[in-house]
């Protein structure tokens, strides 16, 4: 019996100790009318057969050199990261409700919080949310609690559309209004919003959905002048190069939220990733999710424990700052090890390489006839390429060359039919850029 240790003899002895004569008898309080008759599940496989079947499924996903980004990025993950994170002691532990028996996980979370505060330039980080998009929804709810209710949120139209969808879902349940902040169609970057009445906060995406960098200082200062909070949406790897939200404008952003996936988390078709959320210390009691603090035991030894649990659902129930319970602990463990392994220097070098590659590829493609770049502004590692034919058709054709060429913006209902969002990371070698150029050239010529 897979994963069940009892043999017949042991089962009999235990049934006797309970005082029943069959396993079925243990369910004698359940009305027989409710017992299952048919349940269409396949029969079990041995581990060996399971491995063969799933290896076949894995091979049925085409291995592609990845030029797609859009919120999920292909990066190198040092071998030690998951080697350690997947150790049974981390992998199979529960939420650290008994701190004395969970100092490993707790210290890791404390270090994670420290690393996030240093990346974002803010004072407090929680111990993770589900992903960047749901994290942004939590940040909006937090801003509304801080500002008092009956308010709306200013949401840029160049926020990643999947993130906007999540805001619609979560904030829509509480009838919170989302006011669109339009972008300049020529530059692709945000215009200063006209009206801020009724709004609790302005979301500022640095990087936006076109891969462009925004004038974060100006936007932050405007928001503060209007009495709004600023919620920075950031890529943690880019923060090794870009200004920390805590330094935006005169007073700094109030919250920073983002998708943690670039920090050591494999792509895995879309998850599990993790959302990070950092804020000012003054707002810590409105922060959703778990928080770890350093403390001492009776002998004065340093230890770590969960803190301010009165914010959370298992204590506060319906009045909690969020319903979140299980978060993304193991992902954060990996991310912490990843950040510690690379260190400041490694993260900076990686960010710089991503940026360099992006400029190199753009230069290479600029030489192809018929292609253009609709937006001229600064970018980190992702930009829009405008093709003289359907971007979807080009993307599909390049699959045959072993390339995932990018994301057609029309799949997001944005941009022109020829717009393809192209991303480069440090994983790409110069030869890959040339392959991309040549393959694209041949597809365009075959048209």
């Amino acid at each position, binding site marked *: 019996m897979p*994963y*069940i*240790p009892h043999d017949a003899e042991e089962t009999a002895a235990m049934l006797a100790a309970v005082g029943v004569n069959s396993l079925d008898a243990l*369910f004698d309080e359940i009305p027989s009318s*409710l017992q*299952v008759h048919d*349940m269409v599940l*396949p*029969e079990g496989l041995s*581990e060996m057969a399971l491995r063969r079947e*799933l290896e*076949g499924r894995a*091979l049925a*996903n*085409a291995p592609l050199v990845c030029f797609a980004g859009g919120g999920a990025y292909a990066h190198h993950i*040092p071998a*030690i990261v998951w080697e350690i994170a*997947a150790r*049974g*002691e981390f992998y*199979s*532990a529960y939420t650290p409700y*008994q*701190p004395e028996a*969970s*100092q490993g996980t707790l210290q*890791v979370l*404390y270090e994670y919080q*420290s690393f996030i505060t240093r990346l974002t330039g803010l*004072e407090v980080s929680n*111990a993770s949310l*589900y992903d960047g998009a749901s994290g942004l929804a939590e940040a909006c709810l937090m801003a509304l609690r801080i500002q008092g209710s009956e308010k709306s949120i200013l949401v840029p139209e160049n926020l990643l559309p999947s993130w906007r969808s999540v805001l619609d879902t979560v904030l829509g*349940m509480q009838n919170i209004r989302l006011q669109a902040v339009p972008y300049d169609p020529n530059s692709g970057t945000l215009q200063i919003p006209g009206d801020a009445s009724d709004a609790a906060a302005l979301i500022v995406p640095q990087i936006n959905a076109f891969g462009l960098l925004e004038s974060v200082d100006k936007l932050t200062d405007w928001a503060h002048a209007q009495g709004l909070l600023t919620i920075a949406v950031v890529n943690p790897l880019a923060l090794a*190069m870009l*200004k920390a939200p805590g*330094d935006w404008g005169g007073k700094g952003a109030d919250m920073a939220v983002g*998708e943690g996936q670039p920090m050591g988390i494999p*792509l*895995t078709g*879309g*998850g599990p990733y993790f959302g990070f959320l950092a804020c000012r210390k003054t707002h810590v009691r409105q922060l959703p999710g778990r928080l770890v603090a350093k403390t001492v*035991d009776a002998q004065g030894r340093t230890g770590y424990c969960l803190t301010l649990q009165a914010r959370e*659902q*298992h204590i506060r129930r*319906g009045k*909690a700052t969020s319903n979140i319970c*299980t978060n993304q*602990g*193991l*992902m954060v463990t990996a991310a912490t090890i990843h950040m510690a392994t*690379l260190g*400041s*220097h490694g993260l900076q*070098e*990686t960010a*710089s390489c991503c940026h360099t590659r992006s400029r*190199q590829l753009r230069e290479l493609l600029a030489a192809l006839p018929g292609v253009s770049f609709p937006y001229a502004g600064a970018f980190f590692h992702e930009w829009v390429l405008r093709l003289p034919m359907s971007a979807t058709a080009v993307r599909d054709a390049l699959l045959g060359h072993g390339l995932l060429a990018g*994301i057609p913006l029309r799949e997001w209902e944005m941009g022109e039919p020829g717009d393809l969002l192209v991303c480069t990371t440090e994983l790409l*070698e*110069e030869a890959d850029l040339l392959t991309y150029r040549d393959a694209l050239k041949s597809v365009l010529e075959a048209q």
Partner: protein
Amino acid sequence: MNPAVTETVNDSIFAHDHHLPGQKLPTDIPEDLLRKTPLNLPNASELDVLRHYTRLSQKNFSIDTQFYPLGSCTMKYNPRIAHALASLPGFARLHPDTPAPAMQGLLQVLWELQEWLAAATGMAAVSLTPAAGAQGELAGVAMIRAYHLARGDTGRNKMLIPTAAHGTNPASAQMAGFEVIEIPNLPDGDLDMAALDAHLGPDVAGIMLTNPSTLGVFERRIAEIARHVHAAGGLLYYDGANLNAILGRVQPGQMGFDVMHLNLHKTFATPHGGGGPGAGAVAVQERLRPFLPLPTVLQEPHGALRWMSIEDLPQSIGQLSAHGGNIGVLLRAHAYLRRLGRSGVGRVSAYAALNANYLLKELQRLGYQAAFPERRASHEFILSVSDLHKATGVRALDVAKRLLDFGIHAPTIYFPQLVPECLLIEPTETESKATLDRFVAVMAQIRQEALEQPELLREAPHHLPVGRLDEALAARKLDVSAAPE
């Protein structure tokens, strides 16, 4: 012994020497967008990083190293094969925006998992996207809300929830815009039908229940409850946290539930990872199918698989996260289910119940008091040490901390809140009799210690890396991040 890595900064070398190839162009990013504050992360050697986190790991209790009878959390064995398979490059390197024809292998896995979970729960349709149980609850109650609104039934703004329910239930209902009404339990553990009936009405959207309940007993009148709620126009939500108790034996769909979530990180053996990631798939009866959260996987008539979009499901409550959910967790749950198969699934609840009832009997034999002595335990059960507390001053907390000294994780304590000084114990089906017997022996010793030297318990744990921590100090002098040097 292990100073935090943040305290041992070694500033001028690369831990991970990328030697990134290629020309470094001078940046063309405007100066005012570049980082101002120096990034102050440690630059330690790979060995120092490895050693630091390896030693930290050894300070954790975990299923792989300790018995972990944490009630309501279903800490069962997490098969390693599931981790190995989910880590295959064909899955791990797959970008979420890969076109469907290039990811049929993954979609096949997810499609099967949807089908199997529907079969296991007796429901019509499944969406795998919720990232955890609480997000599943949110999706579930949002579907109930959407259902009533879609029928023009706009006055249903109340959600009924038993007093003893998991904290996420009221928190999720609240987050979905409902007012929460608590329904008490009777002394025998079953729901107070009279209280229920008193609250049912045209303003009630539904009721959230788990069965077996958080009291560790099966709600015997569930069919009657379902009839009453349905008659009043409400829907029934099933909190899947306790599904391990009935897996393969009773289906929520058959009990009359309309919508539910499954905690794949409990019942389907995916790891808890020190606090996640989980996966909180939702399953619904046919009438709620139009409202399922996106994305889910659709099989086209010719067999090809693709993600469903809002065009396919225009009444969907929408998207809960940026991509498809915690795919890596779903891969693990799929592997577990495929390994068990129909007969393996049936054994889960049978042996979970055997282990729980055996343990309950053995602990009662030692003198421990069951909260519901007349009832059969489900997959877990509640003890109260009120008697010990009165006799010796020893509290449930002290018993819990003392267990740690014996290399056994503490049960859940002080939940559900209505049983004083309670311990909620869930052994799971993957523990052997030998492990249970050792737990019983330790509990015997602890009971004796409580009577003879209660201070030993009150000052426990004694043999862990740290003693009982000052949690009040932690909240008062809030130190939640190490200041950069």
